[in-house]
């Protein structure tokens, strides 16, 4: 169903670039086609949870299947991934060193991401999850900048640490969801059904209270949940541009998606009981990330902390456990994926010219490279939630949904969360003011050039997507909403 490209052949750099662009474009077309097909089929087939499902027996002993399928949420994520992948390819067009290896690892990362979003089997999902993690080590370590070896190691080990939690969680889910006299299964839908059946029979579901936090923390590490977010700023700052884009844009969404699809879907009771712990933690990451971004001087660090804040908001909204907020969470994933990719792309382009990311050493860039800077302003506006761009739609939905909870605890945290929008404005405007406006700080910067064609393609593509979601969010939120309902109905205030 999903075409996977391999470009193992080819010694010539330009050839590889061309193959990658064509491949990326093909991927984008496939995803777009899939979206259209999905929307059409959804009109006809309104009952089944997942569409385009396929399942092949893999390990018979454990009932492991290679099973894939999509619902509205996965389709949205796939669309996001393909946009980020193709723009990532364009951004790394100027790459000179070890191009072939770079793109091979880049592809492996993308394969992991795609595989994760379409998997319906816990085992395959976990496999793809780890496939997506390990290329990061070499991508950052080899092609990164700054203290790259340290960051690469930190990122890999922390994320692998998360997957250790996750693996125990998966075993716990597998063995405890086996129905009496039945066979264990790794299929997500079947597990969910088994768990519901178990609950209906009045069976013991206390295991959920052990394995829910394990699984949630496991994915939460990737979703940059406080206090497990520390890999994110270092990792993003050291990674090469396209990898930062893909990582912040898509890979961090794996965390949110996993929390939602595995932790909350399979263990709804524990999720409801224990949500308060994670609401506190994610509430902290939202505010803390935003405040940290205010005091950073490195452009990439600012954006990395802003990602912590925004991804915290995703998890925060998921934990509100009603349809509106959850839809907002997925919208936020898409929107944040696009705009953070745009941010990192632009930072990479600016860094490639000025050779500094320190905002104190830059100024007045607007006069020198107007196109890049306008794009940067647009990204900033999307990030602080200007109506008409995607950020507004997502955050609006989240907070409307979150406000449906009337108790004191939720209200406090929602208001706290809302305040992050203001703080976001502070750090975005601070950067815009310092580097784009004002006098030119460094005389050498005056000779710099503006964007070249492939950079324009990348930036405009992302802006178009951001604006499209901002202007016409309804089809997207309907598509997502369909997927959300299946999970939201498990919760008390779900629908």
């Amino acid at each position, binding site marked *: 169903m999903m075409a996977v490209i391999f470009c193992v052949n080819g010694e010539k750099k330009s050839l590889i670039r061309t193959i990658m662009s064509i491949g990326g474009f093909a991927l984008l077309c496939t995803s777009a086609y899939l979206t259209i097909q999905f929307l059409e089929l959804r009109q006809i087939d309104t009952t089944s949870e997942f569409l385009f499902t396929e399942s092949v027996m*893999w*390990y*018979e*002993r*454990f009932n*492991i299947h290679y099973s894939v399928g999509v619902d509205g949420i996965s389709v949205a994520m796939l669309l996001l991934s393909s946009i980020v992948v193709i723009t990532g390819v364009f951004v790394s067009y100027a790459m000179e060193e070890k191009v072939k290896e770079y793109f091979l690892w880049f592809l492996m990362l993308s394969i992991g991401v795609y595989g994760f979003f379409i998997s319906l089997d816990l*085992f395959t999902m976990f*496999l*793809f999850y*780890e*496939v997506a993690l*390990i290329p990061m*080590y*070499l991508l950052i*370590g*080899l092609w990164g900048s700054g203290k*790259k*070896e340290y960051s690469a*190691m930190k990122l*890999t*080990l922390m994320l*692998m*640490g998360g997957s*250790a939690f996750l*693996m*125990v969680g998966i*075993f*716990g889910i*597998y*063995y405890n969801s086996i129905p009496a006299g039945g066979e264990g299964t790794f299929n997500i839908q079947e597990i969910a059904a088994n768990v519901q059946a178990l609950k209906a029979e009045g069976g013991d579901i206390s295991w959920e209270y*052990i394995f829910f936090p394990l699984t949630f923390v496991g994915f939460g590490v990737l979703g940059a949940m406080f206090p497990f977010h520390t890999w994110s700023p270092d990792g993003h700052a050291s990674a090469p541009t396209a990898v930062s884009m893909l990582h912040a844009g898509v890979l961090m969404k794996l965390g949110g998606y996993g929390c939602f699809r595995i932790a909350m879907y399979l263990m709804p009771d524990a999720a409801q009981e224990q949500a308060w712990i994670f609401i506190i933690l994610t509430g902290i990451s939202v505010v803390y990330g935003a405040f940290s971004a205010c005091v950073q001087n490195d452009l990439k660090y600012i954006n990395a902390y802003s990602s912590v804040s925004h991804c915290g908001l995703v998890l925060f909204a998921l934990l509100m456990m009603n349809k509106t907020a959850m839809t907002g969470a997925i919208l936020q994933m898409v929107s944040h994926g696009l705009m953070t990719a745009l941010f990192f792309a632009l930072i990479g382009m600016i860094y490639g010219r000025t050779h500094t990311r320190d905002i104190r050493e830059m100024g007045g860039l607007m006069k020198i490279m107007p196109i890049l800077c306008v794009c940067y302003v647009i990204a900033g506006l999307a990030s602080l939630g200007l109506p008409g761009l995607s950020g507004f739609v997502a955050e609006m939905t989240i907070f409307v949904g979150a406000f449906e909870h009337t108790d004191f605890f939720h209200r406090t945290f929602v208001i706290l969360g809302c305040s992050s929008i203001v703080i976001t404005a502070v750090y975005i405007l601070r950067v815009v003011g310092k580097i784009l406006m004002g006098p030119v700080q460094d005389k050498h910067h005056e000779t710099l050039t503006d964007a070249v064609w492939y950079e324009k393609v990348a930036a405009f593509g992302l802006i178009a997507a951001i604006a499209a979601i901002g202007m016409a969010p309804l089809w997207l939120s309907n598509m997502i909403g369909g997927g959300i309902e299946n999970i939201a109905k498990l919760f008390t205030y779900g629908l």
Partner: protein
Amino acid sequence: MNHEISLVVVMTLVLLADLIIGDKNKKICQIASIGLFLAHTIVCFQWSNSYSPTEAFSGMYLTSEIHMFVKNMLNIGTVLVFLYAYYWNTHENESHAGEFYFLTLSTLLGMYLMISSGNFLLFYIGLETASIPMATLVALNKKREESAEAAAKYILTAAFSSGVMIFGISMLYATCGTLYFDGVSESFSETPLTIMGLIFFIAGIGFKISLVPFHLWTADTYQGAPTSVTAYLSVISKGAAAFAFMCILMKAFSNYPDVWKEILWWIIVVTITVGNLFAIRQKNLKRFLAFSSISQAGYIMLGVIAGSDQGMASLVFYTLIYMFTNLAAFGIISSIEDQTGKVSMDDYDGLYDTNPKLAVVMMLAMFSLGGIPPFAGFFSKFFIFMAAAEQGEYLLVFLALLNTIISLYYYLLVVKAMFIKKSDNPIPTIKIDSMSKVGLIICTICILALGFISPLYTYISERSFGF
């Protein structure tokens, strides 16, 4: 018995060949040895499909399809070791090449007997047959002092541990009145003497598998021994002992799993942790792999503690994949050491720039050892953890998983040295001999493909047994 008989025939032929034509045509002699063993390996595959569980010598000797499978697995591993050793044997070790093959095969015979034993006495004989020639193998590198030192360390600890073990066995005999596994299982009672016997027995076999706290010989011996012998020690010898250990626990001590599970639980935790923590500090790659193999032994023991048929299946599967993975790493190390004499981790800086293929294979091996998908090591780790989790050992699995993070750190150090670091004095581009090349290609294919071939696991698990 076919495996053993055929192996004895091959051994005798190898010895005769070395005697008769060994002095004149050393190369032919070597190729003949490898060829004969290869023929043995292939022929053994023919037999392994037709055997139902049988016994010989009134229960002394047991065999079944899973035993056959493990023996075939050891055969394949030995063939790979022979392929790697060829270059060393034709260059440095020319005068003693014949001995190398003969001694290796006799340890292999010992391992066959260990695996198939139905009686503690036969097990002990197998263990000794496997240990004593091994000490000679370790000492085979006559030009290096370390080799002799390593052999001395090995033989002393081996002698001591088998002394402890046979003492334990005698205690079991005193309380149970029999040495047959079935008999011990029936009359085993929880008295201090039997438990003491059990502990002594575990200590003895713990030496073979190099479980902490019986691991102290490992690093020095691995470092001093010729690299092919190290590879053999770390993979074949360890795999055979682990499987034999599981078989004995399943057969002889199945009535009181609580007793040995408790002991094993702590041994596993300590083994994995100590192995991993010490591996971080190692600069010599052979020592590094020694500690890594200690921690891997701890993971293998997870299958034993599960004690179910799934535990055994995942243990065999794990050993199989560990064999190919570790042999890939040792293949690289031994070819580089044979040709340039470099074994330190710093020497591997910038390997990718000079020897990209070797670096990639080494990277695959490291990732597979660290349990990174989509390489085979991920699958074997997943299944062995799953087997332990099935028995409710979630805490143990969690501790083991945290340890995989530590292990990933040092495996990544090797990857970092090869790919990321730059060196002023890198290893020159070397051309590995065709025999090692074949071995490395086989290992690489297995690392890449074995995880995806699910019928293999199904085959193993259908033939495994628990208690």
